[in-house]
Protein backbone atom coordinates (compact mmCIF):
# COMPACT_ATOMS: atom_id res chain seq x y z
CA UNK A 1 0.00 0.00 0.00
CA UNK A 2 1.41 3.38 -0.93
CA UNK A 3 1.37 6.42 1.28
CA UNK A 4 -1.30 8.14 -0.69
CA UNK A 5 -3.80 5.35 -0.21
CA UNK A 6 -3.11 4.84 3.46
CA UNK A 7 -6.00 5.98 5.66
CA UNK A 8 -6.43 7.47 8.07
CA UNK A 9 -3.08 9.07 8.54
CA UNK A 10 -2.50 12.77 8.41
CA UNK A 11 -3.91 15.91 9.94
CA UNK A 12 -6.82 16.29 7.58
CA UNK A 13 -8.19 12.99 8.81
CA UNK A 14 -8.50 14.20 12.34
CA UNK A 15 -11.89 15.37 13.40
CA UNK A 16 -11.83 19.08 14.01
CA UNK A 17 -13.22 20.68 17.10
CA UNK A 18 -16.27 22.06 15.33
CA UNK A 19 -16.98 18.61 14.09
CA UNK A 20 -17.19 17.25 17.60
CA UNK A 21 -19.21 20.23 18.74
CA UNK A 22 -21.61 20.02 15.83
CA UNK A 23 -21.93 16.34 16.46
CA UNK A 24 -23.22 17.01 19.93
CA UNK A 25 -25.73 19.59 18.69
CA UNK A 26 -26.88 17.90 15.54
CA UNK A 27 -27.23 14.41 16.87
CA UNK A 28 -28.85 14.87 20.23
CA UNK A 29 -32.26 14.07 18.78
CA UNK A 30 -33.71 10.60 19.16
CA UNK A 31 -33.74 10.12 15.40
CA UNK A 32 -30.04 9.44 15.08
CA UNK A 33 -28.65 8.07 11.89
CA UNK A 34 -29.48 4.37 11.98
CA UNK A 35 -26.40 2.50 13.09
CA UNK A 36 -27.12 -0.66 11.17
CA UNK A 37 -27.79 -0.59 7.45
CA UNK A 38 -31.47 -1.07 6.95
CA UNK A 39 -31.96 -3.96 4.63
CA UNK A 40 -34.73 -2.60 2.48
CA UNK A 41 -35.73 -4.11 -0.82
CA UNK A 42 -38.09 -1.41 -1.96
CA UNK A 43 -38.80 2.26 -1.70
CA UNK A 44 -42.43 3.31 -1.68
CA UNK A 45 -43.57 6.79 -2.48
CA UNK A 46 -47.12 8.04 -2.53
CA UNK A 47 -48.76 11.42 -2.84
CA UNK A 48 -48.21 14.62 -4.75
CA UNK A 49 -44.94 16.36 -5.42
CA UNK A 50 -45.47 20.00 -6.38
CA UNK A 51 -42.91 22.42 -7.71
CA UNK A 52 -44.31 25.64 -9.09
CA UNK A 53 -46.93 24.72 -11.66
CA UNK A 54 -45.51 21.26 -12.05
CA UNK A 55 -47.16 18.41 -10.23
CA UNK A 56 -46.13 14.78 -9.93
CA UNK A 57 -48.72 12.19 -8.85
CA UNK A 58 -47.23 9.04 -7.39
CA UNK A 59 -48.32 5.84 -5.78
CA UNK A 60 -45.47 3.51 -6.59
CA UNK A 61 -42.91 1.15 -5.22
CA UNK A 62 -39.42 1.19 -6.68
CA UNK A 63 -37.15 -1.85 -6.48
CA UNK A 64 -33.90 -1.46 -4.54
CA UNK A 65 -31.42 -3.76 -6.20
CA UNK A 66 -28.92 -3.15 -8.96
CA UNK A 67 -29.34 0.00 -11.02
CA UNK A 68 -32.85 1.34 -11.50
CA UNK A 69 -33.14 4.03 -14.15
CA UNK A 70 -35.66 6.85 -13.85
CA UNK A 71 -36.16 7.62 -17.50
CA UNK A 72 -38.18 10.30 -19.25
CA UNK A 73 -38.03 13.56 -21.17
CA UNK A 74 -36.39 16.61 -19.62
CA UNK A 75 -38.87 18.25 -17.28
CA UNK A 76 -40.92 15.13 -16.57
CA UNK A 77 -40.10 15.27 -12.87
CA UNK A 78 -37.24 12.77 -12.60
CA UNK A 79 -34.99 15.11 -10.66
CA UNK A 80 -37.90 16.30 -8.48
CA UNK A 81 -38.59 12.70 -7.56
CA UNK A 82 -34.93 12.07 -6.75
CA UNK A 83 -34.69 15.21 -4.61
CA UNK A 84 -37.84 14.24 -2.74
CA UNK A 85 -36.38 10.80 -2.03
CA UNK A 86 -33.15 12.41 -0.82
CA UNK A 87 -35.13 14.79 1.38
CA UNK A 88 -33.63 17.88 -0.26
CA UNK A 89 -37.12 19.11 -1.13
CA UNK A 90 -39.93 18.75 1.32
CA UNK A 91 -43.36 17.94 -0.05
CA UNK A 92 -45.97 17.98 2.69
CA UNK A 93 -48.40 15.88 0.67
CA UNK A 94 -46.08 12.94 0.05
CA UNK A 95 -45.23 9.79 1.97
CA UNK A 96 -41.88 8.12 1.45
CA UNK A 97 -40.91 4.83 3.03
CA UNK A 98 -37.53 3.16 2.71
CA UNK A 99 -38.45 -0.45 3.29
CA UNK A 100 -40.43 -0.20 6.50
CA UNK A 101 -38.59 2.94 7.69
CA UNK A 102 -40.68 6.08 7.24
CA UNK A 103 -38.57 8.84 5.71
CA UNK A 104 -41.50 11.12 5.35
CA UNK A 105 -44.94 10.47 6.70
CA UNK A 106 -47.32 13.19 7.81
CA UNK A 107 -45.34 15.49 10.06
CA UNK A 108 -42.48 13.02 10.43
CA UNK A 109 -39.56 14.04 8.24
CA UNK A 110 -36.19 12.34 8.53
CA UNK A 111 -33.54 15.00 7.77
CA UNK A 112 -31.29 14.41 4.78
CA UNK A 113 -28.18 13.88 6.86
CA UNK A 114 -29.82 11.02 8.72
CA UNK A 115 -31.11 9.12 5.67
CA UNK A 116 -27.79 7.52 4.78
CA UNK A 117 -28.09 8.21 1.09
CA UNK A 118 -25.33 9.03 -1.30
CA UNK A 119 -25.99 11.54 -4.04
CA UNK A 120 -24.10 12.47 -7.17
CA UNK A 121 -25.34 15.64 -8.81
CA UNK A 122 -25.47 16.50 -12.48
CA UNK A 123 -22.82 19.17 -12.41
CA UNK A 124 -19.66 19.00 -10.42
CA UNK A 125 -20.31 19.39 -6.71
CA UNK A 126 -16.93 18.97 -5.06
CA UNK A 127 -16.33 21.34 -2.17
CA UNK A 128 -13.79 23.78 -3.62
CA UNK A 129 -12.02 24.56 -0.35
CA UNK A 130 -11.11 20.92 0.23
CA UNK A 131 -8.61 18.70 -1.56
CA UNK A 132 -9.72 15.61 -3.42
CA UNK A 133 -8.76 13.50 -0.43
CA UNK A 134 -10.67 15.70 2.02
CA UNK A 135 -13.68 15.65 -0.29
CA UNK A 136 -13.53 11.87 -0.46
CA UNK A 137 -13.42 11.54 3.31
CA UNK A 138 -16.00 14.23 4.12
CA UNK A 139 -18.83 11.76 4.56
CA UNK A 140 -16.63 8.92 5.81
CA UNK A 141 -15.50 10.99 8.78
CA UNK A 142 -19.06 11.85 9.67
CA UNK A 143 -20.13 8.27 10.18
CA UNK A 144 -20.95 7.46 13.77
CA UNK A 145 -18.35 5.37 15.56
CA UNK A 146 -20.52 2.28 15.63
CA UNK A 147 -21.82 2.39 12.08
CA UNK A 148 -20.38 -0.26 9.79
CA UNK A 149 -17.83 0.64 7.17
CA UNK A 150 -18.38 -1.83 4.36
CA UNK A 151 -16.39 0.22 1.89
CA UNK A 152 -12.87 1.25 2.81
CA UNK A 153 -11.20 4.35 1.33
CA UNK A 154 -8.35 2.30 -0.12
CA UNK A 155 -10.80 0.08 -1.95
CA UNK A 156 -12.89 2.91 -3.40
CA UNK A 157 -9.72 4.73 -4.45
CA UNK A 158 -8.60 1.63 -6.26
CA UNK A 159 -11.96 1.04 -7.96
CA UNK A 160 -12.22 4.60 -9.18
CA UNK A 161 -8.48 4.98 -9.86
CA UNK A 162 -8.22 8.09 -7.70
CA UNK A 163 -4.82 7.57 -6.07
CA UNK A 164 -3.03 10.05 -8.32
CA UNK A 165 -5.67 12.75 -7.76
CA UNK A 166 -5.73 12.73 -3.94
CA UNK A 167 -3.51 15.76 -3.21
CA UNK A 168 -5.07 17.90 -5.94
CA UNK A 169 -7.70 20.60 -5.62
CA UNK A 170 -11.06 20.12 -7.38
CA UNK A 171 -10.35 23.01 -9.75
CA UNK A 172 -7.39 21.09 -11.19
CA UNK A 173 -9.51 18.12 -12.27
CA UNK A 174 -11.30 17.41 -15.52
CA UNK A 175 -15.07 16.99 -15.57
CA UNK A 176 -14.84 13.21 -15.67
CA UNK A 177 -12.35 13.10 -12.81
CA UNK A 178 -14.57 15.33 -10.69
CA UNK A 179 -17.55 13.07 -11.15
CA UNK A 180 -15.40 10.08 -10.23
CA UNK A 181 -14.37 11.81 -7.00
CA UNK A 182 -18.01 12.76 -6.31
CA UNK A 183 -19.01 9.14 -6.82
CA UNK A 184 -16.26 7.91 -4.52
CA UNK A 185 -17.22 10.49 -1.89
CA UNK A 186 -20.84 9.34 -1.98
CA UNK A 187 -19.79 5.68 -1.74
CA UNK A 188 -17.54 6.29 1.26
CA UNK A 189 -20.44 7.74 3.25
CA UNK A 190 -21.61 4.09 3.28
CA UNK A 191 -25.02 4.82 1.79
CA UNK A 192 -27.90 2.37 1.80
CA UNK A 193 -29.08 3.95 -1.44
CA UNK A 194 -27.13 5.83 -4.09
CA UNK A 195 -28.97 8.57 -6.01
CA UNK A 196 -27.45 9.61 -9.31
CA UNK A 197 -28.91 12.73 -10.91
CA UNK A 198 -27.76 12.57 -14.55
CA UNK A 199 -24.17 12.21 -13.38
CA UNK A 200 -22.88 11.97 -16.93
CA UNK A 201 -25.02 14.64 -18.59
CA UNK A 202 -22.55 17.49 -18.24
CA UNK A 203 -19.63 15.45 -19.55
CA UNK A 204 -18.29 15.07 -23.05
CA UNK A 205 -18.57 11.72 -24.77
CA UNK A 206 -15.03 10.69 -23.88
CA UNK A 207 -15.47 11.35 -20.16
CA UNK A 208 -18.81 9.59 -20.31
CA UNK A 209 -17.27 6.47 -21.76
CA UNK A 210 -14.62 6.75 -19.08
CA UNK A 211 -17.10 6.74 -16.19
CA UNK A 212 -19.68 4.22 -17.36
CA UNK A 213 -17.52 1.16 -16.66
CA UNK A 214 -16.89 2.51 -13.14
CA UNK A 215 -20.59 2.80 -12.46
CA UNK A 216 -21.19 -0.77 -13.60
CA UNK A 217 -18.29 -2.07 -11.60
CA UNK A 218 -19.45 -0.30 -8.45
CA UNK A 219 -23.04 -1.46 -8.78
CA UNK A 220 -21.77 -5.03 -9.12
CA UNK A 221 -19.12 -4.96 -6.43
CA UNK A 222 -20.64 -2.78 -3.72
CA UNK A 223 -24.15 -4.16 -3.89
CA UNK A 224 -25.53 -0.69 -3.09
CA UNK A 225 -28.82 -0.10 -4.91
CA UNK A 226 -28.78 2.87 -7.24
CA UNK A 227 -31.43 5.15 -8.69
CA UNK A 228 -30.13 6.69 -11.90
CA UNK A 229 -31.90 9.66 -13.46
CA UNK A 230 -31.31 9.84 -17.18
CA UNK A 231 -32.88 11.10 -20.37
CA UNK A 232 -30.51 9.18 -22.62
CA UNK A 233 -31.73 5.77 -23.62
CA UNK A 234 -28.36 4.41 -24.72
CA UNK A 235 -26.91 5.29 -21.31
CA UNK A 236 -29.78 3.53 -19.57
CA UNK A 237 -29.48 0.44 -21.73
CA UNK A 238 -25.76 0.28 -20.98
CA UNK A 239 -26.16 0.60 -17.23
CA UNK A 240 -29.57 -0.18 -15.81
CA UNK A 241 -31.23 -3.39 -14.68
CA UNK A 242 -34.70 -1.92 -14.23
CA UNK A 243 -36.34 0.95 -16.00
CA UNK A 244 -38.96 3.30 -14.56
CA UNK A 245 -40.60 5.25 -17.36
CA UNK A 246 -41.89 8.68 -16.32
CA UNK A 247 -44.41 10.53 -18.44
CA UNK A 248 -47.14 13.14 -17.99
CA UNK A 249 -46.44 13.78 -14.32
CA UNK A 250 -46.54 10.18 -13.17
CA UNK A 251 -44.75 6.87 -13.39
CA UNK A 252 -46.01 5.36 -16.63
CA UNK A 253 -44.56 1.89 -16.19
CA UNK A 254 -41.69 0.07 -14.58
CA UNK A 255 -40.05 -3.32 -14.85
CA UNK A 256 -36.93 -5.19 -15.92
CA UNK A 257 -35.10 -3.32 -18.67
CA UNK A 258 -35.31 -6.01 -21.43
CA UNK A 259 -39.10 -6.15 -21.11
CA UNK A 260 -39.49 -2.38 -20.77
CA UNK A 261 -37.60 -1.88 -24.05
CA UNK A 262 -40.49 -3.49 -25.90
CA UNK A 263 -42.81 -0.64 -24.92
CA UNK A 264 -43.84 1.51 -27.90
CA UNK A 265 -42.90 4.69 -25.98
CA UNK A 266 -39.28 3.51 -25.78
CA UNK A 267 -39.25 1.84 -29.19
CA UNK A 268 -40.14 5.24 -30.64
CA UNK A 269 -36.89 6.70 -29.24
CA UNK A 270 -34.69 3.83 -30.34
CA UNK A 271 -35.87 0.28 -30.88
CA UNK A 272 -33.32 -2.06 -29.35
CA UNK A 273 -33.00 -5.16 -27.22
CA UNK A 274 -30.91 -6.16 -24.27
CA UNK A 275 -29.78 -9.76 -23.94
CA UNK A 276 -27.89 -11.34 -21.06
CA UNK A 277 -25.37 -13.92 -22.21
CA UNK A 278 -22.81 -16.12 -20.44
CA UNK A 279 -19.34 -16.48 -21.81
CA UNK A 280 -17.59 -19.79 -22.06
CA UNK A 281 -14.20 -18.35 -22.88
CA UNK A 282 -12.34 -17.13 -25.92
CA UNK A 283 -11.31 -18.94 -29.06
CA UNK A 284 -8.76 -17.04 -31.03
CA UNK A 285 -10.00 -13.50 -30.64
CA UNK A 286 -13.63 -14.58 -30.63
CA UNK A 287 -15.63 -14.51 -27.44
CA UNK A 288 -17.90 -17.53 -27.10
CA UNK A 289 -21.30 -16.63 -25.68
CA UNK A 290 -24.32 -18.74 -24.84
CA UNK A 291 -27.93 -17.70 -24.45
CA UNK A 292 -29.92 -20.73 -23.40
CA UNK A 293 -28.94 -23.44 -25.88
CA UNK A 294 -27.82 -20.99 -28.50
CA UNK A 295 -24.32 -19.90 -29.38
CA UNK A 296 -22.91 -16.55 -30.40
CA UNK A 297 -19.42 -15.53 -31.38
CA UNK A 298 -18.23 -11.97 -31.06
CA UNK A 299 -14.86 -10.27 -31.38
CA UNK A 300 -13.50 -10.18 -27.84
CA UNK A 301 -13.24 -6.66 -26.40
CA UNK A 302 -9.69 -5.38 -26.55
CA UNK A 303 -8.12 -4.84 -23.18
CA UNK A 304 -8.47 -1.24 -22.12
CA UNK A 305 -7.21 0.53 -19.03
CA UNK A 306 -10.66 0.98 -17.60
CA UNK A 307 -11.79 -2.61 -18.14
CA UNK A 308 -11.42 -5.20 -15.44
CA UNK A 309 -8.15 -7.19 -15.50
CA UNK A 310 -8.22 -10.39 -17.56
CA UNK A 311 -8.17 -12.61 -14.50
CA UNK A 312 -11.55 -11.41 -13.24
CA UNK A 313 -13.33 -11.10 -16.57
CA UNK A 314 -17.06 -11.19 -16.03
CA UNK A 315 -18.72 -14.38 -17.10
CA UNK A 316 -21.95 -12.57 -17.78
CA UNK A 317 -22.28 -10.02 -20.59
CA UNK A 318 -24.92 -7.55 -21.63
CA UNK A 319 -25.56 -7.43 -25.35
CA UNK A 320 -27.19 -4.36 -26.87
CA UNK A 321 -28.74 -5.08 -30.22
CA UNK A 322 -30.44 -2.44 -32.37
CA UNK A 323 -33.71 -3.71 -33.86
CA UNK A 324 -32.55 -2.65 -37.32
CA UNK A 325 -29.46 -4.83 -37.01
CA UNK A 326 -31.58 -7.97 -36.76
CA UNK A 327 -32.76 -9.75 -39.95
CA UNK A 328 -35.09 -12.77 -40.08
CA UNK A 329 -35.08 -15.80 -42.35
CA UNK A 330 -37.28 -18.91 -42.47
CA UNK A 331 -34.27 -21.24 -42.86
CA UNK A 332 -30.75 -20.94 -41.45
CA UNK A 333 -28.55 -19.23 -44.02
CA UNK A 334 -25.47 -21.11 -45.10
CA UNK A 335 -24.25 -18.74 -47.78
CA UNK A 336 -24.19 -15.56 -45.66
CA UNK A 337 -21.37 -13.75 -43.94
CA UNK A 338 -23.51 -13.33 -40.82
CA UNK A 339 -22.34 -16.08 -38.52
CA UNK A 340 -24.58 -15.33 -35.56
CA UNK A 341 -27.88 -17.00 -36.32
CA UNK A 342 -30.28 -17.62 -33.48
CA UNK A 343 -33.44 -19.66 -33.53
CA UNK A 344 -36.25 -17.50 -32.16
CA UNK A 345 -40.03 -17.62 -31.85
CA UNK A 346 -42.27 -14.76 -32.98
CA UNK A 347 -44.30 -13.43 -30.06
CA UNK A 348 -45.86 -10.29 -31.51
CA UNK A 349 -45.90 -7.45 -33.98
CA UNK A 350 -45.72 -3.83 -32.84
CA UNK A 351 -46.08 -0.71 -34.96
CA UNK A 352 -42.78 1.04 -35.67
CA UNK A 353 -42.29 4.82 -35.82
CA UNK A 354 -42.14 4.62 -39.61
CA UNK A 355 -45.47 3.55 -41.21
CA UNK A 356 -43.77 1.19 -43.67
CA UNK A 357 -42.03 -0.77 -40.91
CA UNK A 358 -43.02 -3.24 -38.20
CA UNK A 359 -41.26 -4.23 -35.00
CA UNK A 360 -41.28 -8.00 -34.71
CA UNK A 361 -41.14 -9.24 -31.13
CA UNK A 362 -39.11 -12.41 -30.72
CA UNK A 363 -38.42 -14.81 -27.90
CA UNK A 364 -34.88 -16.12 -27.53
CA UNK A 365 -34.66 -18.69 -24.74
CA UNK A 366 -36.99 -16.62 -22.60
CA UNK A 367 -35.37 -13.26 -23.40
CA UNK A 368 -37.05 -10.70 -25.65
CA UNK A 369 -35.44 -9.60 -28.92
CA UNK A 370 -36.79 -7.10 -31.44
CA UNK A 371 -36.31 -6.97 -35.20
CA UNK A 372 -37.23 -3.99 -37.34
CA UNK A 373 -38.55 -5.18 -40.72
CA UNK A 374 -40.51 -3.56 -43.49
CA UNK A 375 -44.17 -4.55 -43.64
CA UNK A 376 -43.47 -5.81 -47.14
CA UNK A 377 -40.86 -8.31 -45.85
CA UNK A 378 -43.21 -9.54 -43.14
CA UNK A 379 -45.86 -10.25 -45.77
CA UNK A 380 -43.40 -11.79 -48.25
CA UNK A 381 -42.10 -14.25 -45.63
CA UNK A 382 -45.62 -14.85 -44.28
CA UNK A 383 -44.45 -14.33 -40.68
CA UNK A 384 -47.00 -15.35 -38.05
CA UNK A 385 -47.33 -15.49 -34.30
CA UNK A 386 -45.67 -18.53 -32.74
CA UNK A 387 -43.57 -19.26 -35.82
CA UNK A 388 -39.95 -20.40 -35.38
CA UNK A 389 -37.55 -18.35 -37.49
CA UNK A 390 -33.82 -17.56 -37.63
CA UNK A 391 -32.54 -14.18 -36.51
CA UNK A 392 -29.35 -12.92 -38.10
CA UNK A 393 -27.63 -10.48 -35.78
CA UNK A 394 -25.37 -8.12 -37.70
CA UNK A 395 -24.08 -5.91 -34.91
CA UNK A 396 -23.86 -6.27 -31.17
CA UNK A 397 -22.54 -3.88 -28.54
CA UNK A 398 -20.98 -5.63 -25.58
CA UNK A 399 -21.08 -4.24 -22.03
Amino acid sequence: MTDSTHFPSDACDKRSWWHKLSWAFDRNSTTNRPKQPTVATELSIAGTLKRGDFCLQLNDTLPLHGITALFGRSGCGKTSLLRAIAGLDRHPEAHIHFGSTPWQHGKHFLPVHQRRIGMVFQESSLLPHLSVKQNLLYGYHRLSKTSPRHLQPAQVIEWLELAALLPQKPEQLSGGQRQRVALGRALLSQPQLLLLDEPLASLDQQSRNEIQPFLQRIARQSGIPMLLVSHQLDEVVKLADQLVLMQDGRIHSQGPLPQQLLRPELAAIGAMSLLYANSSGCQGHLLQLTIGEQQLQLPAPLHSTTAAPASIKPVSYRLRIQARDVALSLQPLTDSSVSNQLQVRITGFNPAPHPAETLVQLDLAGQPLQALLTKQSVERLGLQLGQLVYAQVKAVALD
Partner: protein
Amino acid sequence: MIELTAQDWQAIQLTLKLCLYTTLILLLLGTPLAWWLAQGQSRVRTAIQALVALPLVLPPTVLGFYLLLLLGPHGAVGGTLEQLGFHHLAFSFTGILIGSVIYSLPFTVQPLLESFRRMGPRPLEVAQTLGAGKLDQLFSVVLPLCRGGFIVAATLTFAHTLGEFGVILMLGGSIPGETQVLSVLIYDHTEAMNYSQAHQLSLGLLIAAFVVLFIVYGLNKRFDRGQLT
Protein backbone atom coordinates in the same frame (compact mmCIF):
# COMPACT_ATOMS: atom_id res chain seq x y z
CA MET B 1 5.47 66.93 14.02
CA ILE B 2 2.73 64.79 15.51
CA GLU B 3 1.74 65.95 18.94
CA LEU B 4 -1.39 64.34 20.18
CA THR B 5 -3.01 65.57 23.34
CA ALA B 6 -4.51 63.34 25.99
CA GLN B 7 -7.91 64.31 24.65
CA ASP B 8 -6.87 63.15 21.17
CA TRP B 9 -5.67 59.82 22.51
CA GLN B 10 -8.86 59.35 24.43
CA ALA B 11 -10.89 59.98 21.27
CA ILE B 12 -8.77 57.52 19.29
CA GLN B 13 -9.25 54.90 21.97
CA LEU B 14 -12.98 55.51 22.13
CA THR B 15 -13.30 55.38 18.34
CA LEU B 16 -11.49 52.06 18.11
CA LYS B 17 -13.62 50.65 20.93
CA LEU B 18 -16.79 51.76 19.19
CA CYS B 19 -15.65 50.29 15.86
CA LEU B 20 -14.67 46.99 17.43
CA TYR B 21 -17.88 46.56 19.42
CA THR B 22 -20.02 47.56 16.44
CA THR B 23 -18.24 45.09 14.18
CA LEU B 24 -18.57 42.20 16.62
CA ILE B 25 -22.24 42.86 17.35
CA LEU B 26 -23.04 43.28 13.67
CA LEU B 27 -21.31 40.04 12.66
CA LEU B 28 -23.43 38.21 15.21
CA LEU B 29 -26.67 39.92 14.17
CA GLY B 30 -25.98 40.35 10.47
CA THR B 31 -25.02 36.76 9.68
CA PRO B 32 -28.39 35.16 10.47
CA LEU B 33 -30.18 38.13 8.91
CA ALA B 34 -28.18 37.90 5.66
CA TRP B 35 -28.64 34.13 5.65
CA TRP B 36 -32.38 34.49 5.94
CA LEU B 37 -32.43 37.13 3.19
CA ALA B 38 -30.42 34.82 0.90
CA GLN B 39 -32.96 32.02 1.19
CA GLY B 40 -35.31 33.39 -1.44
CA GLN B 41 -37.43 36.22 -2.68
CA SER B 42 -40.62 37.17 -0.89
CA ARG B 43 -42.39 40.44 -0.13
CA VAL B 44 -41.34 40.29 3.53
CA ARG B 45 -37.70 39.72 2.56
CA THR B 46 -37.76 42.61 0.10
CA ALA B 47 -39.24 44.89 2.78
CA ILE B 48 -36.60 43.87 5.31
CA GLN B 49 -33.85 44.34 2.74
CA ALA B 50 -35.11 47.86 2.02
CA LEU B 51 -35.22 48.58 5.74
CA VAL B 52 -31.65 47.35 6.17
CA ALA B 53 -30.50 49.59 3.32
CA LEU B 54 -32.23 52.73 4.66
CA PRO B 55 -29.15 54.11 6.48
CA LEU B 56 -27.42 54.20 3.07
CA VAL B 57 -29.74 56.89 1.76
CA LEU B 58 -31.07 58.71 4.83
CA PRO B 59 -29.16 61.73 6.17
CA PRO B 60 -27.47 60.51 9.38
CA THR B 61 -29.19 63.38 11.16
CA VAL B 62 -32.59 61.82 10.50
CA LEU B 63 -31.47 58.53 12.00
CA GLY B 64 -29.81 60.33 14.90
CA PHE B 65 -32.90 62.46 15.51
CA TYR B 66 -35.27 59.51 15.79
CA LEU B 67 -32.82 57.52 17.88
CA LEU B 68 -32.48 60.49 20.21
CA LEU B 69 -36.26 60.56 20.62
CA LEU B 70 -36.42 56.81 21.12
CA LEU B 71 -33.48 56.37 23.49
CA GLY B 72 -33.81 59.69 25.33
CA PRO B 73 -35.42 60.10 28.76
CA HIS B 74 -38.91 60.55 27.27
CA GLY B 75 -38.60 57.95 24.48
CA ALA B 76 -40.12 54.49 24.43
CA VAL B 77 -36.84 52.76 25.19
CA GLY B 78 -35.13 55.42 27.29
CA GLY B 79 -38.30 56.11 29.29
CA THR B 80 -38.83 52.47 30.09
CA LEU B 81 -35.22 52.18 31.22
CA GLU B 82 -35.65 55.19 33.50
CA GLN B 83 -38.76 53.65 35.04
CA LEU B 84 -36.85 50.44 35.69
CA GLY B 85 -34.24 52.44 37.57
CA PHE B 86 -31.58 52.54 34.81
CA HIS B 87 -30.25 55.55 32.99
CA HIS B 88 -31.60 56.54 29.58
CA LEU B 89 -29.30 55.99 26.60
CA ALA B 90 -28.97 59.40 24.98
CA PHE B 91 -25.47 60.97 25.31
CA SER B 92 -23.97 57.64 26.40
CA PHE B 93 -21.57 55.15 24.85
CA THR B 94 -24.28 52.47 24.77
CA GLY B 95 -26.49 54.94 22.90
CA ILE B 96 -23.95 55.68 20.17
CA LEU B 97 -23.14 51.97 19.98
CA ILE B 98 -26.80 51.24 19.20
CA GLY B 99 -26.75 54.06 16.66
CA SER B 100 -23.59 52.69 15.03
CA VAL B 101 -25.02 49.19 14.83
CA ILE B 102 -28.09 50.44 12.96
CA TYR B 103 -26.11 52.87 10.83
CA SER B 104 -23.55 50.26 9.68
CA LEU B 105 -26.00 47.36 9.29
CA PRO B 106 -26.10 47.49 5.46
CA PHE B 107 -22.31 47.31 5.33
CA THR B 108 -22.39 43.98 7.12
CA VAL B 109 -25.45 42.50 5.50
CA GLN B 110 -24.71 43.33 1.86
CA PRO B 111 -21.31 41.56 1.49
CA LEU B 112 -22.57 38.56 3.47
CA LEU B 113 -25.76 38.35 1.42
CA GLU B 114 -23.76 38.50 -1.77
CA SER B 115 -21.35 35.77 -0.72
CA PHE B 116 -24.19 33.51 0.52
CA ARG B 117 -25.99 33.97 -2.78
CA ARG B 118 -22.83 33.27 -4.73
CA MET B 119 -22.26 30.07 -2.79
CA GLY B 120 -25.80 28.91 -3.62
CA PRO B 121 -27.63 26.02 -2.01
CA ARG B 122 -25.64 23.22 -3.64
CA PRO B 123 -22.62 22.94 -1.27
CA LEU B 124 -24.98 22.60 1.67
CA GLU B 125 -27.05 19.98 -0.14
CA VAL B 126 -23.86 18.07 -0.79
CA ALA B 127 -22.85 18.31 2.87
CA GLN B 128 -26.28 17.13 4.01
CA THR B 129 -26.25 14.08 1.80
CA LEU B 130 -22.84 13.27 3.25
CA GLY B 131 -24.20 13.30 6.78
CA ALA B 132 -23.42 16.82 7.98
CA GLY B 133 -25.93 18.41 10.36
CA LYS B 134 -26.77 22.14 10.45
CA LEU B 135 -23.99 23.36 12.73
CA ASP B 136 -21.48 21.10 11.02
CA GLN B 137 -22.50 22.65 7.67
CA LEU B 138 -21.92 26.14 9.09
CA PHE B 139 -18.39 25.39 10.22
CA SER B 140 -17.23 22.99 7.52
CA VAL B 141 -18.86 24.62 4.47
CA VAL B 142 -20.36 28.10 4.98
CA LEU B 143 -17.52 29.70 6.92
CA PRO B 144 -14.68 28.47 4.69
CA LEU B 145 -16.57 29.14 1.44
CA CYS B 146 -17.83 32.58 2.49
CA ARG B 147 -14.63 33.58 4.30
CA GLY B 148 -14.09 36.44 1.86
CA GLY B 149 -17.59 37.76 2.47
CA PHE B 150 -17.07 37.72 6.23
CA ILE B 151 -13.72 39.51 6.02
CA VAL B 152 -15.08 42.16 3.67
CA ALA B 153 -18.17 42.63 5.84
CA ALA B 154 -16.10 43.03 9.00
CA THR B 155 -13.63 45.45 7.40
CA LEU B 156 -16.29 47.60 5.76
CA THR B 157 -18.32 47.76 8.96
CA PHE B 158 -15.24 48.78 10.92
CA ALA B 159 -14.27 51.41 8.38
CA HIS B 160 -17.76 52.80 8.07
CA THR B 161 -18.10 53.16 11.82
CA LEU B 162 -14.77 54.97 11.80
CA GLY B 163 -16.28 57.61 9.54
CA GLU B 164 -19.53 58.01 11.43
CA PHE B 165 -20.38 61.58 12.41
CA GLY B 166 -23.96 62.74 12.08
CA VAL B 167 -25.64 60.03 14.12
CA ILE B 168 -23.13 60.35 16.94
CA LEU B 169 -23.32 64.12 17.07
CA MET B 170 -27.13 64.02 17.19
CA LEU B 171 -27.39 61.16 19.66
CA GLY B 172 -24.26 61.45 21.73
CA GLY B 173 -23.05 64.99 21.55
CA SER B 174 -19.39 65.39 22.37
CA ILE B 175 -18.62 64.03 25.83
CA PRO B 176 -14.90 63.19 26.17
CA GLY B 177 -14.38 59.53 26.99
CA GLU B 178 -18.05 58.72 26.45
CA THR B 179 -19.20 59.93 23.03
CA GLN B 180 -16.42 62.14 21.70
CA VAL B 181 -15.08 60.03 18.85
CA LEU B 182 -12.48 61.18 16.33
CA SER B 183 -14.85 62.61 13.76
CA VAL B 184 -16.62 64.65 16.43
CA LEU B 185 -13.33 65.81 17.92
CA ILE B 186 -12.11 66.99 14.53
CA TYR B 187 -15.31 69.01 14.23
CA ASP B 188 -14.70 70.47 17.70
CA HIS B 189 -11.09 71.33 16.86
CA THR B 190 -12.20 73.05 13.69
CA GLU B 191 -14.91 75.00 15.50
CA ALA B 192 -12.25 76.13 17.99
CA MET B 193 -9.92 77.12 15.08
CA ASN B 194 -7.32 74.52 16.20
CA TYR B 195 -6.52 73.78 12.56
CA SER B 196 -3.21 72.01 13.15
CA GLN B 197 -4.78 69.53 15.54
CA ALA B 198 -7.77 69.00 13.25
CA HIS B 199 -5.30 68.51 10.43
CA GLN B 200 -3.33 65.79 12.26
CA LEU B 201 -6.38 63.77 13.11
CA SER B 202 -7.97 64.26 9.70
CA LEU B 203 -4.89 63.13 7.84
CA GLY B 204 -4.57 60.16 10.20
CA LEU B 205 -8.15 59.14 9.54
CA LEU B 206 -7.75 59.61 5.81
CA ILE B 207 -4.72 57.36 5.69
CA ALA B 208 -6.34 54.75 7.94
CA ALA B 209 -9.49 54.70 5.79
CA PHE B 210 -7.44 54.35 2.61
CA VAL B 211 -5.42 51.47 4.04
CA VAL B 212 -8.58 49.66 5.18
CA LEU B 213 -10.26 50.05 1.79
CA PHE B 214 -7.10 48.99 0.00
CA ILE B 215 -7.11 45.82 2.07
CA VAL B 216 -10.81 45.22 1.35
CA TYR B 217 -10.39 45.47 -2.40
CA GLY B 218 -7.28 43.30 -2.25
CA LEU B 219 -9.18 40.66 -0.33
CA ASN B 220 -12.14 40.91 -2.68
CA LYS B 221 -9.87 39.89 -5.50
CA ARG B 222 -8.27 37.11 -3.54
CA PHE B 223 -11.52 35.62 -2.33
CA ASP B 224 -13.33 36.06 -5.59
CA ARG B 225 -14.43 32.46 -5.57
CA GLY B 226 -16.76 30.34 -3.59
CA GLN B 227 -18.41 28.63 -6.49
CA LEU B 228 -18.21 24.88 -6.67
CA THR B 229 -15.71 23.42 -9.03
